[in-house]
């Protein structure tokens, strides 16, 4: 027997090792449970190294980018100081705002505007194996992450946590063939099941043939799966064709449109949201220029400041002028004192303009058919030909915005738009 074992030692060891692993696989498949300890060991051994590598990479890239940015900024500042002090301050301020509007800022904005409790995480690695649709993030059970939690970005859902380890978590992306989530279309409220296909597009199954869904329509999470709360964007329909029994619908997942995102949000505590009624908007929004301040100031001394503003403003200006003419100060008179005589109001032009003493307000705009003030006659949807349309790229200070000092909130909002927040639907 001993001679037999010595002679076939290698093949015996091979069979034993293979048999042990077969038993391991069989136990997991039969019980549908994982041998967690081995995975914890491996993940705990590998992810710290991956985090260090990611830290080194991020630090290196950040140093290079910051150095280059700083270099450019200094050079530009010198030139701007020579040109104009005001422009320099404005430019520096806007540049800082743009730099600040990075992905983390966008995620933070999204977190603020979404009722769900979220945890920001960074993707630190892909799962082993070719064509892997699973990633590791740097937040684990130590941070409160649990298996089954949803992972999203402002652009759309990304996947769900399939395993939480102390220092990291494993996230199955929505294009994984094993992924499924309940979804609902935006317009017709058609429900279906989103499934990964291993390709950049996902399928929406179980949508009956009689239901109407159109290419371009958005799908949102329905909340039926108890993983994703209702109201998170999933993606737009790319193709619809009749299948056997159900429609074949292909959706471009907006959350992983450009591959796995680097930063994600884990829904620690999901809250259902309303699915927005308005269609998904990816077009840039034009912001009309502010009303001309100089004109208003020029007309103020004459007591006819109502050249611009609402009808109530115009009326208020008229009454104020009448009061001043009669030596009355509003808010001062005692009870029982004589009020101003409002029976002698000056006649007004169509559109509420006061003819006397208001030459500055009688420009070409006032000479229109209806005499409406209509500041530069610009509608929000249609910018004037002389104004370049605002795009969703980082702002280069469009002319419309140069006319007035921009508040930090305005700049921050536009910077966040540039950083990608508005790619998602309105929440």
């Amino acid at each position: 027997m001993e001679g037999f074992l010595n002679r076939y030692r290698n093949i015996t060891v091979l069979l034993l090792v293979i048999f042990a692993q077969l038993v391991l696989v069989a136990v997991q498949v039969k019980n549908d449970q994982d041998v967690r300890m081995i995975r914890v060991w491996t993940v705990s051994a590998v992810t710290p190294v991956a985090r260090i590598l990611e830290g080194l990479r991020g630090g290196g890239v950040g140093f290079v980018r910051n150095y280059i940015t700083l270099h450019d900024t200094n050079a530009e500042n010198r030139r701007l100081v020579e040109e104009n002090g005001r422009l320099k301050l404005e430019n520096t301020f806007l540049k800082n705002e743009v730099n600040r509007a990075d992905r983390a800022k966008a995620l933070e904005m999204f977190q603020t505007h979404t009722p769900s409790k979220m945890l920001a995480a960074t993707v630190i690695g892909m799962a082993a194996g070719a064509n892997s649709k699973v990633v590791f993030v740097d937040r684990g059970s130590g941070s409160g992450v649990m298996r089954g939690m949803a992972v999203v970005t402002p652009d759309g859902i990304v996947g769900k946590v399939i395993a939480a380890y102390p220092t990291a978590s494993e996230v199955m992306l929505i294009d994984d063939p094993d992924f499924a989530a309940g979804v609902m279309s935006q317009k017709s409220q058609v429900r279906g099941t989103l499934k990964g296909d291993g390709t950049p597009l996902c399928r929406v199954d179980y949508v009956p043939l009689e239901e109407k869904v159109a290419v371009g329509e958005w799908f949102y999470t329905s909340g039926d799966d108890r993983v994703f709360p209702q109201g998170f964007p999933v993606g737009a329909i790319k193709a619809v064709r009749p299948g056997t029994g159900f429609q074949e619908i292909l959706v471009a997942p907006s959350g992983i449109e450009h591959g796995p995102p680097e930063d994600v949000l884990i829904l620690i505590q999901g809250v259902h949201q309303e699915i927005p009624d308005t269609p998904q908007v990816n077009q840039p929004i034009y912001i009309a220029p502010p009303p001309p301040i100089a004109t208003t100031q020029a007309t103020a001394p004459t007591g006819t400041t109502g050249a611009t503003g609402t009808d109530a403003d115009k009326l208020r200006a008229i009454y104020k002028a009448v009061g001043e003419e009669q030596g009355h100060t509003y808010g001062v008179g005692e009870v029982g004192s004589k009020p101003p005589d409002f029976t002698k109001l000056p006649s007004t032009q169509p559109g509420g303009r006061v003819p006397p003493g208001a030459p500055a307000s009688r420009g070409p705009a006032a000479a229109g058919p209806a005499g409406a003030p209509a500041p530069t006659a610009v509608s929000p949807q249609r910018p004037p030909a002389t104004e370049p349309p605002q795009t969703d790229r980082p702002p280069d200070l469009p002319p419309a915005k140069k006319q007035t000092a921009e508040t930090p909130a305005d700049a921050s909002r536009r910077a966040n738009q540039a950083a990608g927040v508005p790619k998602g639907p309105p929440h």
Partner: protein
Amino acid sequence: MSYSGGRILLSSQREGQVSRFRAWVLLVVPLAAILFQVYVPLFFGFLGFVEMPLLVVVYFALMRRNQVSGMLVGALVGLAQDSLSKVPLGMYGIVKTLVGYFAASVGMRLDVDHNFIRLLLSFVFFMFHQILFWVMERALLSHQPAFELQRWLVLGLLNALIGAALFHFLDKLRETA
């Protein structure tokens, strides 16, 4: 690199020289291979096809010329790969155990310092790895993965080329006699 007089087949096992490695090499290289597969495709997606853990298993098994050692390296690397993927533990482990065993068996009979042999063996073991994994997915997990033979052939060739270069680099980590 030393060639055995241009011969590919060894007349006896004694002709083949058993390579020795320091302990840290045996620990760090497989870990680096797994890290490569986990981390690098995140930023260079086109490198996702590189089966670095498999190439490392093939190299150590070929050079150690010991079947038990080859299968153990294969089992450990495979289990680590399983741990970092969503398949049940043991799937990659079994495949790589067999790869390690057969690579060590082949290494005892062929001149594994020969570049062409390395290229050929890397290609063959890549195909073996892919096909066996496909079979196991169907048999053990009842999955229906696609049989992408043409794709595997191309990827096998690319992996073989990378393997030949990698083996050349790893040769420098061998202990000199």
